[in-house]
């Protein structure tokens, strides 16, 4: 089963929700290259938490299974799965593929 397209849309939806709360000059681009975490990211830590929570909730609802994006594996992985939209998408797809 190919999850990638749907997962990417879910992450974009989470970023759209975040953008609704951000001022015009701090809007986050809806792109796989958008950086979410690390020195070059423009997203603060609380905003990243919001995105993670939205993605977790949407994935759990859409696929009717609990998904934890912040387990020990995610936290210890280098580079972090939260580095960019692309790495986060890859990580979620990996989790879903394992459970499929």
């Amino acid at each position: 089963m190919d999850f990638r397209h749907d997962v990417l849309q879910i992450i974009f939806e989470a970023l759209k929700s975040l953008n609704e709360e951000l001022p015009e000059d701090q809007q986050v681009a809806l792109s796989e290259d958008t950086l979410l975490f690390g020195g070059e990211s423009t997203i603060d830590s609380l905003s990243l938490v919001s995105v993670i929570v939205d993605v977790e909730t949407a994935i759990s609802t859409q696929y009717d299974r609990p998904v934890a994006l912040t387990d020990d594996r995610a936290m210890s992985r280098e580079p972090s799965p939260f580095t960019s939209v692309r790495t986060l998408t890859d990580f979620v797809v990996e989790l879903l593929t394992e459970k499929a």
Partner: protein
Amino acid sequence: MTAYADKTVLVTGATRGVGRQITDHVLAGGGRVLGFARQASYIDNANYTHFQVDLANATAVTAIFGEVRKKTSRIDIVINNAGVLTSQYAMIMPPAAAQAMVNVNLLAPFLISREAAKFMRKSKWGRIINIGSMAASLEPIGDSVYAATKAGLSTLANVMAKEFGTFNVTCNTLGISAIDSDMLAQLPRDKIEEIIKSLPVARFADIDDILNVIDFFASERSSYITAQTVFLGGVN
């Protein structure tokens, strides 16, 4: 209008003792209750939805929110009421009893509060109310772990108050004094009465003392009250 009209209120330990009385109070005030308890429910009310879950099991606590999401998209108020108490000298306290107190009294409120906060974040409004204990302040002999978990509950609320304040969620703790309940029946009566005599208001708490403070924390007007612990009976 009560603080609960048209609100969805999650109550843990909803079927017995103080939790049952809180549940009845919220329902009477026009609220909807999501009741968490280990046992089945006999509460017959259209505004009551029961979730059977063992709060000592962290995996089960997190998983039950998948069921909650199927029933509602709103949680406005959380009342972390459920607790377990084993009173015993530290040197002979069974580790399993100590672990159960940590799981039910501290870890479960943490997990429930954070999962509920994910709902509150969307509505940008919420109240998290922890039921603590005078034991956190009085530190009675035999209650090392129980008192520590209840003190931890205040700390939990105080930190969450900072994390959740940006979306208008307040987090407070009510430190209740002794009330006649199944939990209290486990303790020697003379020990309890000795503690009661030492309080500025030397009597047992009654349910209205508890509901009064819960109503205060839950109130719309209490949006500027957060990270506070209120003890009953003059404990401080």
